[in-house]
């Protein structure tokens, strides 16, 4: 009877998670992802590391994971300066041309991360812009069909992905170095395709992978 009353008393929006009976091994004793650290024991500020355990979840500056591409040699320009942006033109794409399989993966990454603004056809008309009818007010760069971007060197594109450019934010947290260079290869391949040339796809053993 108590149950019936308790249940009929609730509104249909459940704002509380509900109760748990004898939570045996339900909650982690170890620190889980996103769990709050005990601030009496841990600190994320290095200058307080004398009395507390210093831990800020970041790897030591300059850490390079195994097999990871080397970091970009240029730093972000200060406001009003474009020296490093200009210098980035000289940096070449360290990755060899993509295999057919890599190209497919790069396309998938492009569609997830870039396509919403730059469009699935790379024409700068993604669902967020929609010819100016979408919520995004600025017109995204037309990667295909605009001579500026078709002639843009790989390094400069990388600079924009890494640090952001104008209203575009940095994608450093969403794409790793390898993925960024691969996406640039994909864009260049699409630009070449649009110009009528064949996409510079490497033909090696990996292209005959079983589907």
């Amino acid at each position: 009877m108590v149950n019936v009353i308790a249940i009929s008393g609730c509104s249909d929006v459940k704002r509380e998670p509900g109760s748990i009976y004898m939570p045996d091994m339900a909650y982690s004793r170890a620190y889980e992802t996103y769990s709050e650290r005990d601030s009496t024991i841990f600190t994320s500020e290095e200058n307080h590391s004398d009395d507390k355990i210093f831990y800020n979840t970041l790897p030591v500056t300059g850490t390079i994971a195994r097999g990871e591409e080397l970091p970009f040699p240029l730093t972000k320009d200060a406001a009003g300066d474009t020296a490093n942006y200009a210098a980035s033109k000289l940096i070449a794409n360290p990755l060899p041309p993509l295999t057919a399989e890599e190209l497919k993966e790069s396309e998938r990454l492009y569609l997830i991360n870039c396509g919403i603004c730059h469009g699935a056809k790379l024409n700068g008309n993604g669902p967020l812009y929609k010819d100016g009818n979408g919520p995004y007010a600025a017109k995204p760069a037309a990667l295909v069909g605009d001579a500026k971007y078709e002639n843009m060197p790989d390094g400069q594109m990388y600079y924009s992905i890494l640090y952001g450019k104008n209203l575009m934010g940095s994608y450093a947290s969403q794409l790793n170095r390898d993925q960024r260079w691969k996406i640039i290869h994909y864009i260049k391949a699409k630009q070449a395709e649009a110009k009528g040339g064949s996409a510079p796809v490497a033909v090696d053993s990996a292209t005959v992978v079983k589907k």
Partner: protein
Amino acid sequence: MKISAKKKLKRVMFCQIPVILLSPFKDISPHLYNSTVNMIHLRSIMGKLTFIAAFCFFVLFSNQSFSQDGKALFSQNCASCHAINKDLTGPALAGVEDRWPDKKMLYSWIKNNQAVIKSGYPYAVDLYNKWNKTQMNLFTSLPDKDIDAILGYIKVEGSKPAVDPNKPVPGGVVAEEGDNTLLFGILTLILAIVAFVLLQVNANLKKLADDKEGIPATEPVPVWRNKVYIMFATLVLFTIGGYYTVMGAIGLGRSQDYQPEQPIFYSHKVHAGTNQISCLYCHGGAQESKHANIPSVNVCMNCHMAINEYKGEALYTAEGEEVNGTNEIKKLYKYAGYEEGKPWDATKAKPVEWVKIHSLPDHVYFNHSQHVAVGKVQCQTCHGEITKMNEVYQFADLSMGWCINCHRETKVQFADNGFYSIYEKYHEDMKNGTMDSVTVANIGGTECQKCHY
């Protein structure tokens, strides 16, 4: 106006009932039928009127071919940094001709802004400093007549009144529909009373008949001491009470339908539904790690540096209260430490403390990448129709039975997959035709220690 989400949904569904479906009601309730049909007609007429108005508007302005050229030129050259009525990378351009003291200087600014700054022209230098020394692209080869067209387009667009997105759409509000559960409850109660009365009448009639025939009447037993009634009532209470007790006990520790209030009213419907942003844009961790990560503030700011107001359809909380989307974006700016019109310093951002909805007990191991990247399971399979949720709720109960059921039914990509080459017997069976597919359960997906270790 307070409307619960459920009623809102009903409303939407109600509008979409075709007139044909309503026709059987014509005989039952002609009034209701007529009013509903009229409403539908009215709405379609309103829709047409809006369309005609929009068309006239379009024709009116597209006649100015001058302005149309300007639009194309604007979109090609200026739109990536400037909007008409909004500051982006560069200032809003409405009224730019009136702002510049000298029109000639404006033309030379557009062509080569760096040269104008170097010449020390005060308005240009001020502008350059005000916009944090952001350099404008050079358009040295842009002919004067193109600049004329662009400025003409800006003038026409800038003089248009701003459309108020919060203005209510005309079309009338559909009459509210009562909750059916209450109606059924009342009907059941009435039927029960009728049955009870009939039983009493029957007993009385029997008594009368017996009296007439001279059979001596037994002392009538009152209802509350009638053993049949008592037994029946006990049985009903036992069943109902038992049902709710068992269901409540099963539900302990599970939190299906849990829909907490989040620090920011972030609508997955707007982002993943209307704007078609891939789930993995924000939750990219789902394809490479155990956890589907919560996006950090910089991911929000990728778009919200430019999108600072909400203009879509009205938003409602689960309780039915209207939400001002623009205010919610302002909340994000507070977390990000971003002031509009100034460059954003990402180091000032503070994390948004979102409330976790889907929690598995620590004694279960679940890995997102295993399901998303390897198993190619859609996010919606476990999280429900996220693209339709304004406020996310827990769709599945996340019980063990639910997990196991999916593992029994889901087929794995067995053929041409080097990972499963060691299952020789299954390969043999597939070849012989004794087995047509291999499920997750077949390859150990229901073993205890797969998830509990």
